């Protein structure tokens, strides 16, 4: 096993609803060149590429083919990875394995989403297209009135069940979700690469947004964002030669489960707030990183939270606090940027969601915090030695975990 470091991070200049001024490949290339500038490398340094996005959202299949020229990949190996919301981190993990295999020294992960050129809700509804088709062919009315409704529109349907179950299990109230969303919008205001920013956001302001599907309010939901993120990974030898600062990869892990909602054809298995796959992935990651007590050893965490309750829920599932304790940590201010365990100092996915990038942004934000390079006032004041990045995706059942450190892992 070989030590692998993150030595460069690149973002497109802004993450906003509509990047009307650039095409898809142009937007990706902004992030590619930003990463090169960030670490002083050039395309000649790259040995391989990994690439990820959820292409049904834009309607362009395998866009790495179209974008190969724009991301400086010509003549190089490139592997396309797609696992849903986790795509960015799955592509990053793939890059990690490239370097850790000993066969490649420097590998670039390229991710993006340009939601404004497609329709994310159609893309998400497309997850269950064959099931919908079957139900229609069986004469099942999906427009309402059926006793077995609940397919839900887009991803907000199933997620509501998860939030209800989480509240029931944890003893938290909807006011805690409001407060968590407000905290992340305030954090986002300090992150130049965040989308929904509100420096004065309060729980009361979130609570005033309309209820979409109990207990999910409009203010708890992520936006659809245009954006691109790039990460450069290198072997220890390469990093020593070219990088002044690096974040070291201590562990990567992932786990899938069974799709828990919407799949009426094959039944529903588990409580969507159980997230067994997250617990398994975290356990494996801690083992690999030699972490015995994550509550004490992890200094900072970035959680994939398409919906604000997930920040709290996953804090528990990742073993970073006891079950039912996350909303208490929030009340005590421990998860603020200057708190004991800063959580989503970046503003999280709930403030910025260009899907292909979202799970990678969790990693790059942890890396920048470790390097002390987080811009715009969201650098945490404490020294970050170990940070955890989490990704969530699939149809609510897929989780990825990455643990980074400020030095190579002592084996």
């Amino acid at each position: 096993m070989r030590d692998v470091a993150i030595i460069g991070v690149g973002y497109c200049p802004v993450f906003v609803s509509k990047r009307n001024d650039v095409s898809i490949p142009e937007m990706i290339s902004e992030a590619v060149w930003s990463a090169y500038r960030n670490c002083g490398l050039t395309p000649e340094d790259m040995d391989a590429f990994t690439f990820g996005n959820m292409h049904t959202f834009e309607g362009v299949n395998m866009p790495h083919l179209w974008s190969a020229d724009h991301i400086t990949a010509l003549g190089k190996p490139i592997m396309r990875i797609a696992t849903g919301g986790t795509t960015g981190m799955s592509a990053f993990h793939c890059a990690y394995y490239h370097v850790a295999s000993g066969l490649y020294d420097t590998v670039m992960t390229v991710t993006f989403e340009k939601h404004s050129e497609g329709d994310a809700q159609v893309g998400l509804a497309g997850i269950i297209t064959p099931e919908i088709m079957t139900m229609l062919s069986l004469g099942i009315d999906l427009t309402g009135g059926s006793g077995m409704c609940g397919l839900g529109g887009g991803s907000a349907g199933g997620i509501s069940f998860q939030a209800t179950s989480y509240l029931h299990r944890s003893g938290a109230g909807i006011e805690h979700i409001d407060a968590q969303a407000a905290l992340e919008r305030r954090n986002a205001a300090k992150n130049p690469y965040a989308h929904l920013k509100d420096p004065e956001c309060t729980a009361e302001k979130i609570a005033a947004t309309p209820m979409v599907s109990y207990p999910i309010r409009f203010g708890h939901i992520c936006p659809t964002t245009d954006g691109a993120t790039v990460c450069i990974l290198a072997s220890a030898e390469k990093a020593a030669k070219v990088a002044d600062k690096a974040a070291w990869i201590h562990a990567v892990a992932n786990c899938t489960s069974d799709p828990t909602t919407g799949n009426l054809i094959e039944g529903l298995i588990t409580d969507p707030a159980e997230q067994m796959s997250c617990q398994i992935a975290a356990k494996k990651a801690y083992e690999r990183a030699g972490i015995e007590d994550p509550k004490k050893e992890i200094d900072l965490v970035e959680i994939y939270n398409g919906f604000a309750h997930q920040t709290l829920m996953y804090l528990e599932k990742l073993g970073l606090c006891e079950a039912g304790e996350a909303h208490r940590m929030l009340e005590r201010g421990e998860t603020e940027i200057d708190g004991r365990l800063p959580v989503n100092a970046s503003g999280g996915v709930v403030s910025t969601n260009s899907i292909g990038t979202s799970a990678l942004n969790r990693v790059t934000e942890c890396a920048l915090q470790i390097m002390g390079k987080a811009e715009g006032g969201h650098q945490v004041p404490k020294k970050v030695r170990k940070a955890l990045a989490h990704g969530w995706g699939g149809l609510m059942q897929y989780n990825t975990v990455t643990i980074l450190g400020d030095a190579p892992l002592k084996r």
Partner: protein
Amino acid sequence: MDDKVAIVGIEYSQGDDLGLTRERLCFRTVRGVLDKLGIDRHAIDCFILASNDFLEGRTISNVFEDGPVGAYLKDETKVEMDGINAVVYGALRILEGNYDTAMVIAHSLCGHQVSPYLQVQYSLDPTYDRQLGLLNELSGAALQARAYLRSRGLDEGWLDRAAAAALANGAANDMVTRSLDGADESKVASSSYLYEPLREMHCYPPTDGACAIVLASAGRARELTDRPVWIRGFGSSIDSYYFAGRDLTRSASAADAARRAFAMAGISDPASEIGLAEVSDLFAYQAPLLAASMGLADADEAPRRFAEGGFGKDARLALNPSGGALSAHPVCATGAVRVAEAFRQLRGEAGAVQAGEPRLALAHGQDGLCLQQNTVVVLGI
């Protein structure tokens, strides 16, 4: 690469219409290879799927395949391209050190359920090529075929002979079910034009198929089989999306991919060292074009020799004794099937299409229009 990563088991099926749902196809294929090896799903450390959401007609298509492939509460990821790349990813995982086994599953249902052309259509530049409406997988291949014929001084009759040679191999392969009997030159020549100069029988058939491949670390491999097939090297590369600046009469990225794979495998003279090559030849002109690009054959000699059956199973280099992708192209599984075919050739298990006793074999997969992206894996016994 020395004995570090091995393929220990394969299971695959291909056909015009396997009459299965994707879930049952995945289940059957994975169950098949697990049963061959006498292990259960818990013996697999990670699952790597190869499929495509546009082919599946659904976003995040792997979520419904995780169950049938046995990945419930396991480590799973998806390489969204030809399955040979999932084989490469599986090898990287094992080389990293945390995994002893990896299950690769590639599949498609392009026989009757899904149009195989859609996924390529949607990969084109939506702001130009899709607006113009002229470029698609077949018209692109026709342009490349025309360029290749001209560069090598060949006529359309050569395409008929090349296709007949490939299909004759496929006819002998019980793993292929395209109706190939009597697919001689005249029958090929009388099939209808799709895009001139390409006729229907110059082009791959819409195919259902799935392929499962189990990879293992050296130690684990010897526990699972007494005849592991070792991954000696691999490489891949991509060319520009844009035709301008690309020489369509060869494949620069296939050459890059092969060069990298040979370097990793310590092969200095591929033309004499590789005894068997399985390439993803979607169209009749591609097998010799690829063999020449990858340094396995002389560029001028290859097309004629191929059409004359000079790369048959008794030749020093057997090229696509399986019948290649021209006999069956389950999109996303095709490159993985090439690996599987090479596996059974190296183990001497290829039955009627067994090509001598090869020691080193090459498997190839491609993505994109006109061989834009290529991956090569070198296997040895």
